[in-house]
């Protein structure tokens, strides 16, 4: 489709580069050597400090939409320089950068100049610190980094003992055995293995290592670790408890995590004895000599996949992550609105979520529920809890296949102690009960209620505290809101064959706005951002409202002004209603 654009791009770059007195077009074989689909290339000598090195401009097959790449030839070995990729390609511009498309020749010249500067810096050795700043790019390219660590530990702690389980998926490392077991159970629910947990050292280094210090042997590793850390590691080596070391080091761009594995038992003689014990009776070798012999054993680097909360919920740059990790939410109602809210709260990092719902998932729910076809006929709460645990195994998510009353009866402490209780039930009976129970028990922490108006054309999220207005303040005795945002000419509920069978038509798109409204208010309530009673409303686009047969209600317009074209969130005054039965009781 874009063959013409490609041809023009090749011509434009060629016309620009032929201004160089010494320039050579690359052959097809040279282009193929890059193992990428470069369709044209040019080599220009004499641009960098080392005259033996040439720079190459390489055009990809999607040029001009794809950017030219710059390579150095002959290519230094990988890890000799920062920003050097395979085959001598230079990493100059991030992959998500945008570039001008009109003049490919100018772009090529710009990148050539930046490549020249980069190579000269590499030759001068002035950018070696980049090996530390971008540690993981280089560590992952180290041929000896073939092992895998799954990391659940805190990244900002000191050198300490942590715990590991060696699984077929890699070694999983955690600060506590309990956290490790929970994670494994959540992540691999089908596995019948009982985790066999060992203690291993986690050492904090002053800085991430540069490639010339990547260790080849245990001796190198101990030298890298420094004296104090080395002594700590040696205890585990001599104890033969573990053959894993986890490491973390801070740099200006954040924490680098990596690890090592070594094998102390691979050193057997043909007769089954251990080479390391050669010359000594079994068990009689002095520790000093044993350690000296262990030092020469090779180590294997381990790449880390961080699965801890701090990383998942913000790559160590989300201040709220630590706070949310300690929070407990009880979410009553795991329907279309509730499942979305729960998903958002889990993705934001709420540490403990109890999902409560007694109903089954049906196929007609699939278009607007987080669960899929494989869960139809199953209980929403437990099934969705299982799904969320598999997605985010570091969180503590439980499902209770109960209605709100039964849950309150069986787990009263949870409703009292939870940092936030959210009702997503849309059920007058259950919600008035919940509201009353919260007042009666003097629940000190917030309770939230969230629901939608017909066609999800408006959504409400209300947060009540121990004092001030309550849920009942918003409704008359029969459960009609004093002020609705929308009004409808006809009945909006649709019927289906079945006793009291009806449904409210709205889709996943309209629903998503209400889900994010509720989740946003919940997070604010959890982090102390909203310490007062709050009522927020999502008002859909007027076009959608009208298309569904609705319009803004007169009461809303009179009280709060016309939403006009809609598509906004508003915060409306939330005051005690003088007719509120709960407040009259008090």
């Amino acid at each position, binding site marked *: 489709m874009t063959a013409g654009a490609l041809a023009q791009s090749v011509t434009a770059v060629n016309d620009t580069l032929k*201004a160089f*007195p*010494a320039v050579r077009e690359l052959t097809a074989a040279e282009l193929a050597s890059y193992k990428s689909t470069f369709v044209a290339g040019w080599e220009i000598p004499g641009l960098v400090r080392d005259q033996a090195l040439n720079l190459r401009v390489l055009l990809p097959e999607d040029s001009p939409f794809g950017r030219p790449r710059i390579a150095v030839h002959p290519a230094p070995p990988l890890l000799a320089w920062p920003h050097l990729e395979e085959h001598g390609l230079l990493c100059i511009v*991030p992959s998500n*950068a*945008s*570039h001008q498309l009109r003049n490919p020749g*100018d772009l090529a010249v*710009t990148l050539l100049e930046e490549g020249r500067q980069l190579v000269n810096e590499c030759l001068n050795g002035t950018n070696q610190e980049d090996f530390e700043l971008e540690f993981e790019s280089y560590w992952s390219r180290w041929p000896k980094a073939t092992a895998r660590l799954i990391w659940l530990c805190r990244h900002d702690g000191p050198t300490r003992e942590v715990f590991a389980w060696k699984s077929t998926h890699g070694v999983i490392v955690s600060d506590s055995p309990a956290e490790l077991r929970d994670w494994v159970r959540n992540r691999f629910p089908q596995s019948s293995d009982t985790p066999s947990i060992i203690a291993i050292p986690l050492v904090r280094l002053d800085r991430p290592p540069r490639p010339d210090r990547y260790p080849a042997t245990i001796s190198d590793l101990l030298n890298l670790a420094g004296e104090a850390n080395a002594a700590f590691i040696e205890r585990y080596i001599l104890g033969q408890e573990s053959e894993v070391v986890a490491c973390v080091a801070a740099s200006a761009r954040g924490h680098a995590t990596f690890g090592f594995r070594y094998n102390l038992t691979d050193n057997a003689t043909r007769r089954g004895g251990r080479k390391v014990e050669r010359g000594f009776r079994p068990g009689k070798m002095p520790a000093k000599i044993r350690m000296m012999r262990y030092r020469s054993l090779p180590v294997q680097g381990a790449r880390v996949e961080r699965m801890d909360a701090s990383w998942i919920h913000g790559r160590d740059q989300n201040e709220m992550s630590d706070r949310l990790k300690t929070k407990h939410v009880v979410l009553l109602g795991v329907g279309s609105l509730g499942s979305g809210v729960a998903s958002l709260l889990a993705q934001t990092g709420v540490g403990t979520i109890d999902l409560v719902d007694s109903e089954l998932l049906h196929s007609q729910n699939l278009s607007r529920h987080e669960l899929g076809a494989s869960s139809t006929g199953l209980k929403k709460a437990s099934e969705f809890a299982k799904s969320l645990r598999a997605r985010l195994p570091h969180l503590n998510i439980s499902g209770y296949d109960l209605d709100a009353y039964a849950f309150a009866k069986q787990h009263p402490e949870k409703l009292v102690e939870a940092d936030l209780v959210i009702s997503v039930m849309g059920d007058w009976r259950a919600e008035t009960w919940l509201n009353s129970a919260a007042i009666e028990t003097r629940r000190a922490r917030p309770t939230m209620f969230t629901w939608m108006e017909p066609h999800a054309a408006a959504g409400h999220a209300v947060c009540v505290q121990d004092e001030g207005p309550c849920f009942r303040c918003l409704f008359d005795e029969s459960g009609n809101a004093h002020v609705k945002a929308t009004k409808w000419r006809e009945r909006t509920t649709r019927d289906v064959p079945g006793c009291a069978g009806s449904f409210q038509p709205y889709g996943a798109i309209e629903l998503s706005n209400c889900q994010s409204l509720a989740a946003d208010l919940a997070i604010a309530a959890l982090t102390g951002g909203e310490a007062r009673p709050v009522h927020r409303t999502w008002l859909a686009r007027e076009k959608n409202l009208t298309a569904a047969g609705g319009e803004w209600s007169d009461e809303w317009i009179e009280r709060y002004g016309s939403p006009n074209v809609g598509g906004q969130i508003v915060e409306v005054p939330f005051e005690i209603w003088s007719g509120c039965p709960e407040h009259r009781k008090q």
Partner: protein
Amino acid sequence: MFDKSRDILAYHDSEVTLPQAVRTAMRDRRDSNRDRLKTQLNADGKPLPREFIKQGSYAMKTMAQDSDDDYDIDDGVYFTRESLQDADGVDMAPKAARRMVCKALQYSRFNRDPEVKTSCVRIYYDAGYHVDMPIYRIVTKYGYEVYELAAGDKWVESRAVDVEEWFDNENQRQSTDTTNGRQMRRITRLIKKFARSRNKWKTNIAAGFTITKLVQEHFSPNADREDKAVRDTMKNIHARLQWNLEVQHPVTPNAMLTDGPNDAKTAYLRDRLKETLDELAVLDEHDCTSRQAADAWDIAFDTTFFSQRVSEAAKAANITVLDNLLSKREQPRQYEKEGGGRFA
């Protein structure tokens, strides 16, 4: 003609003329030989030379670099006639004189012993380099000192010592410049370099002294163009050799440097010059490029020097061109690192 004057001069300075370090090493070896000879002759109770006088291309400073380090220094040993006579006044035979010198030059550190040759004693060094010491006796004739070379079985009058003076005078007279050895000397070196540029030519082509004489005869000076000077001199020599292959000794009366009217080696030189001048014809084409001119001179001297200079010059120019292209860009900001602030 495409101007490669600067490249020819650079080639001369880099690849033709002997580096000072080599000349110094040669001089040191020459001096060692002189000292060893005097010491041993004295120890053997033999006559001592009155003087040593350098001669040949080493003396004329027309030596050119050789890829095999095949250098030939000539250092004349001069005895008085009287010192070479016995108690009865009988002259020492030429061969005996050469043997006497050869014996005195023996040295345990030489891998190969010095040898008596027809007209000299040859001292061998590693890598093909050798020093020839012709032996002379100084004879007074008609009130003048005359030098006689121990050549074969005879003492033959020789004016080798005058050759250096002859060349220096001609160099001064014909050259238009006064630096870098002067142009005639440089052209001599260049054409000698050309003549020994291929291994298979070395044993078949005219001797260095013959070439020196031919250059002196047909030198074409050019104050502004070294390349024209060497090419025109080549043309002149070729034209001359087409009608006469014989070359006279410049200072020794009635002596020839060639072997008869059909001298094979000068004929070989003539034919190689013809081939080379044909290759250089491209220089006169109006659209001759720098690369083509460089290639032609590379062929002439069997080298890659000239084409490498073109490549090096082009390489050196690339950085200037890059700066120029950068300054001509429509806009300096060609890309946005953060993708224009959009995320998904």
